[in-house]
């Protein structure tokens, strides 16, 4: 979220698309109902299903799953055509005026540089024209045909209301009504917020779904302002934290990246991370990359990281592929290329696509380790549960070790909310049986490995043996010790270069924020964006002052918000080019003539003059990007691509199958239904119900009561066509598997007219499995395709194809 949950109360229009906030985030949705009740805000829901969010919406428009980009490009086109643009914002705060290289172009669904054999682009032309001064060239008048604005205008011109309706199945009048409501928010005194979640991410073009809305929000001037923003409603309680901390194959905490093997040494590594400003005066904050990186290395390896050894650069593993994401991991497992796998609080057998493939892959491991507070299907993938898990234990040679962990109520530490608040919590109960904290278990694994290496030696033990592990109790580092590491501290005194008697930083002290970090090894910091969370002033994450001056919804003294306790990021954009708030009734920051002041921590140097320095300080341009340059693998502008399994061919580019640069493994491609396959004619989507939390609440009796049994949802029309009775049984199958489910025949799902063809939708809730308190049932991932988003590999759970027939109940 660029903004916070509580900030949503400041909005005028809530657009819920690519998500179902009422259902998935009820307590956050409260702020939508607040905005409606107190500001008269409107709520628009665009979704294939009439959801619980739609139940309280002012306007609902149906859309076929997987066609969001067409819809949103259509809205952008509408705004451009009807002058619903916040011009001042667009001109000052976006790259609309930047000139793009002449070689760049787009045709028939593809941009310049496509290589079909690699399923990748050569992206060199996707960039600005650089002037003789070394800066990007701009045309403030927006007259130059090569400026981003004109390219964008041409790019979206195709997405007329008729075309949008043809692709998305949204009736034209409903589409136009939504456009009209959104268009009103181009006014500087009206804001719209976008609330989205997995309904956008779980597509082979998930990143571009989000990007399209972000572009729209920029055009409307809604980024950085109160009641605006791009609000990704994160799923799990600390998934934001785990992402921030880089628990991914290619990341270092704070969104730094691991070296690849094309970056053999430290200087090469740093060379591509210089982030020279692309316009004069811009902060280009990533110029500080080295400070953050070196401080991280110092925290990891302490004295073993020295200037001489490039701060232990070699200790970091180097990637040979873009990422070892979960899909790749299970593909490797299936190929027999992996031997051990540790699942910490995770149930991949249910959570990743194509259960049959996952089970086969797990069966090829030597050792599977499970750390979890609860029983999971993954831990028992080898156990036979009839049709629900037809495993044959005798044939599965995987050794499984299941380790009981504590749960939230028994441990201490911070979780990061979707609104980036780091909130500390305290343990309240004794753990059951012999359950242990994750910290204790990880420490044990580390200490035992270290002991083995000390005794036996082995492959490159240096990084492991030199890992800084100076905790009071090495067997169980305390949450405070770990939190202090993430905040960072001073390793050696730093003196004032002008006055050597004056210490700027004193060894052993906690740093006050990432501004204090240095690239010479004198500071150490585990996660620079968290710096400031545990300073000499104490644990700021544990703050519980809920005062809110000005009633902005900022709550600046409640817990700690990264970065630097900032509540709304890009908040400098809440004021115009002169530093005057766009909307006096909703002001956030303003330039008082000498410095930035207001209700939030400025997302800019406090004394940076408004006319000189752009608000998007992380970008070398200082402005936001309507044109993404080469940052996205699948294009600098979003293009409508069909899901890999689609009931229709791509109307705008019939030859392009799915997202042209999404990674697809060979065996998986063979398991996709053909485009418009008569064998799998129905567009399916999977989702969670509000009564449940993924697969966890299977272990919870109350939640199992509230929605007891696996079902699928279909329209009355499809039920009639297929002869399926309300509450009766049906079999649903895809090219990868088959499930039995009760059927909910509902008015909330309607068939759609897509490119002249009636498309029926089958909704498949997730939750059920074969362990826990709930009834046994089938997980949706027996059906879902094994393909991810082109940029970040989020699986395409939201759009795939199935068939359905009435049946009697499953024979267990």
């Amino acid at each position, binding site marked *: 979220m660029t903004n916070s949950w509580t900030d949503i109360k400041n909005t005028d229009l809530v657009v819920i698309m690519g998500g179902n906030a009422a259902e998935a985030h009820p307590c956050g949705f409260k702020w939508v109902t607040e905005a409606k009740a107190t500001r008269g805000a409107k709520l628009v829901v665009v979704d294939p299903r009439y959801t619980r969010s739609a139940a309280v919406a002012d306007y609902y428009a149906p859309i076929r799953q997987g066609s969001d980009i067409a819809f949103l490009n259509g809205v952008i086109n509408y705004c451009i055509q009807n002058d619903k643009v916040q011009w001042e914002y667009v001109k000052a705060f976006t790259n609309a005026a930047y000139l793009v290289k002449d070689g760049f172009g787009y045709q028939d669904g593809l941009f310049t540089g496509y290589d079909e054999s690699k399923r990748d682009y050569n992206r060199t032309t996707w960039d600005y024209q650089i002037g003789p001064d070394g800066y990007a060239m701009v045309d403030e008048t927006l007259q130059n045909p090569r400026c981003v604005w004109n390219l964008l205008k041409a790019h979206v011109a195709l997405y007329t209301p008729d075309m949008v309706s043809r692709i998305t199945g949204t009736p034209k009048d409903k589409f136009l009504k939504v456009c009209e409501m959104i268009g009103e928010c181009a006014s500087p005194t009206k804001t719209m917020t976008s609330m989205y979640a997995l309904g956008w991410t779980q597509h082979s073009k998930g990143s571009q779904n989000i990007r399209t809305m972000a572009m729209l929000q920029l055009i409307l001037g809604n980024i950085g302002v109160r009641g605006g923003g791009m609000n990704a409603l994160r799923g799990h309680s600390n998934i934001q934290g785990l992402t921030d901390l880089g628990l991914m194959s290619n990341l270092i905490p704070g969104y730094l990246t691991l070296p690849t093997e094309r970056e053999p040494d430290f200087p090469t590594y740093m060379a591509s991370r210089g982030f020279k400003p692309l316009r004069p005066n811009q902060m280009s904050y990533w110029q500080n990359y080295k400070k953050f990186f070196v401080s991280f290395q110092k925290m990891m390896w302490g004295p073993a990281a020295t200037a001489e050894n490039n701060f232990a650069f070699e200790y970091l593993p180097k990637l040979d592929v873009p990422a070892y994401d979960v899909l790749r991991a299970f593909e490797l497992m299936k190929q027999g290329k992996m031997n051990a796998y540790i699942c910490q609080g995770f149930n991949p057998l249910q959570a990743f696509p194509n259960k049959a493939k996952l089970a086969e892959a797990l069966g090829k491991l030597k050792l599977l380790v499970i750390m979890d507070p609860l029983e999971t299907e993954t831990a028992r993938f080898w156990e036979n549960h009839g049709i629900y898990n037809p495993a044959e234990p005798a044939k599965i040679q995987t050794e499984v070790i299941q380790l009981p962990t504590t749960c939230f109520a028994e441990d201490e530490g911070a979780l990061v909310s979707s609104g980036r608040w780091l909130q500390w919590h305290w343990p309240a109960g004794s753990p059951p049986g012999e359950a242990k904290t994750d910290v204790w278990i990880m420490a044990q694994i580390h200490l035992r490995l270290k002991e083995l290496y000390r005794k036996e030696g082995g492959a490159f033990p240096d990084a492991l043996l030199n890992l800084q592990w100076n905790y009071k109790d090495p067997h169980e580092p305390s949450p405070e010790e770990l939190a202090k590491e993430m905040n960072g501290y001073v390793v050696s005194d730093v003196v004032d270069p002008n006055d050597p008697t004056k210490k700027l930083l004193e060894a052993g002290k906690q740093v006050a924020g990432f501004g204090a970090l240095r690239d010479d090894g004198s500071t150490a910091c585990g996660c620079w964006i968290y710096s400031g969370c545990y300073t000499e002033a104490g644990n700021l994450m544990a703050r519980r002052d809920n005062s809110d001056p000005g009633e902005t919804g900022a709550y600046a003294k409640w817990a700690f918000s990264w970065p630097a306790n900032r509540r709304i990021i890009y908040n400098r954009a809440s004021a115009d080019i002169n530093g005057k708030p766009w909307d006096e009734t909703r002001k956030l920051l303003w330039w008082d003539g000498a410095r930035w002041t207001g209700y939030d921590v400025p997302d800019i140097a406090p004394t940076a003059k408004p006319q000189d320095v752009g608000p998007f300080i992380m970008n070398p341009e200082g402005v936001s990007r309507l044109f993404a340059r080469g940052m996205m693998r699948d294009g600098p502008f979003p293009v409508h691509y069909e899901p890999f399994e689609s009931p229709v061919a791509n109307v705008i580019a019939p030859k392009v199958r799915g997202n042209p640069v999404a990674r697809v493994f060979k065996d998986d491609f063979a398991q996709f239904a053909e485009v418009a396959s008569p064998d799998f004619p129905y567009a399916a989507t999977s989702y969670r119900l509000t009564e449940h939390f993924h697969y966890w609440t299977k272990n919870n009796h109350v939640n199992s009561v509230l929605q007891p*049994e696996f079902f699928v949802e279909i329209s009355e029309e499809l039920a009639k066509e297929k002869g399926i009775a309300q509450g009766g049984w049906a079999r649903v199958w895809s090219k990868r598997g088959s499930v039995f489910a009760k059927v909910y025949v509902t008015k909330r799902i309607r068939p759609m007219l897509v490119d002249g063809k009636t498309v029926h939708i089958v909704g498949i809730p997730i939750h059920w499995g074969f362990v826990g308190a709930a009834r046994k049932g089938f997980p949706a991932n027996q059906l879902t395709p094994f393909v991810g988003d082109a940029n970040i590999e989020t699986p395409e759970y939201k759009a795939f194809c199935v068939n359905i027939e009435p049946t009697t109940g499953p024979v267990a």
Partner: protein
Amino acid sequence: MFPPAPNPPIAPTPAKFGEKDLIRKSASSITPASPRQTEVAKLIDVSKCIGCKACQAACLEWNNLHEEIGTFNGSYTNPPDLTPASLTLMRFTEWVNPETDTLEWLIRKDGCMHCEDPGCLKACPAPGAIVQYSNGIVDFVHENCIGCGYCIKGCPFNIPRISKVDNKAYKCTLCSDRIAVGQWPACAKACPTQAIVFGTKDEMKNWADGRIKDLKSRGYQNAGLYDPPGVGGTHVMYVLQHANTPQIYAGLPKDPTISPVVEIWKGVTKYVGFAVIGIAAAAGVLHHLVAGPNRVSEEDEENAEKLTGSDRT
């Protein structure tokens, strides 16, 4: 946002109402407490409800209730009806508005309405099994409940349910234990969107006015408050988008009253019945006094002997 009650106390806290505040007690005549406490009410704003069932979960949890895991039966309403454990239930209705031809998903939280004139209490034969406090809460006292189910017949909203386990009637208590220490009922506290709020009845009516204004501004011309006068008003009220047709909300009665059948049964029948029985008994006594016993005479015996041929001659 309606200001919520502060966090619950953990130090011993005196109850804010109790036995002394009763105004009605089933099958008993008591002197109603005076002065009356401020009447409380729970306001359920159906237009804000997202049907998340937090109220159901909170109710089960706070009241330590154990509901069975059921089956799917063609609706999100789970369990399919109120039970002795499910004292509150979200009822889902997919309704196509005939005027606009648009779908509306009407979701109503069902449960005890805490009537000012409670039919359950009127019907109850067990002294003290149902009580009404002067703040409006109607509560079941399980020690006194005999499980006859008369409350079910008395209730105009079909709320109480008899437990198969202990044969006692159960329904929402409005979390009287929580209200007694200044807390909101568990459902109202949990409700994510403040579709349920709690306060004095006057506050709730005022709050509802604001909500109705907002709904009317959004085109719900028939938005209104459901506080049915037929039962003297209720201490659980609804804000409805279509207050003119409450029946579309899973059969919320339009003008609920205590059934006339119940009124006759618990009223006139009782008096007339006992009168008739009394008259019958009195008539017997009177007749005996006047007519005297009807005895067999010696002559009768002789006639019989004659007839049977056992006479002495």
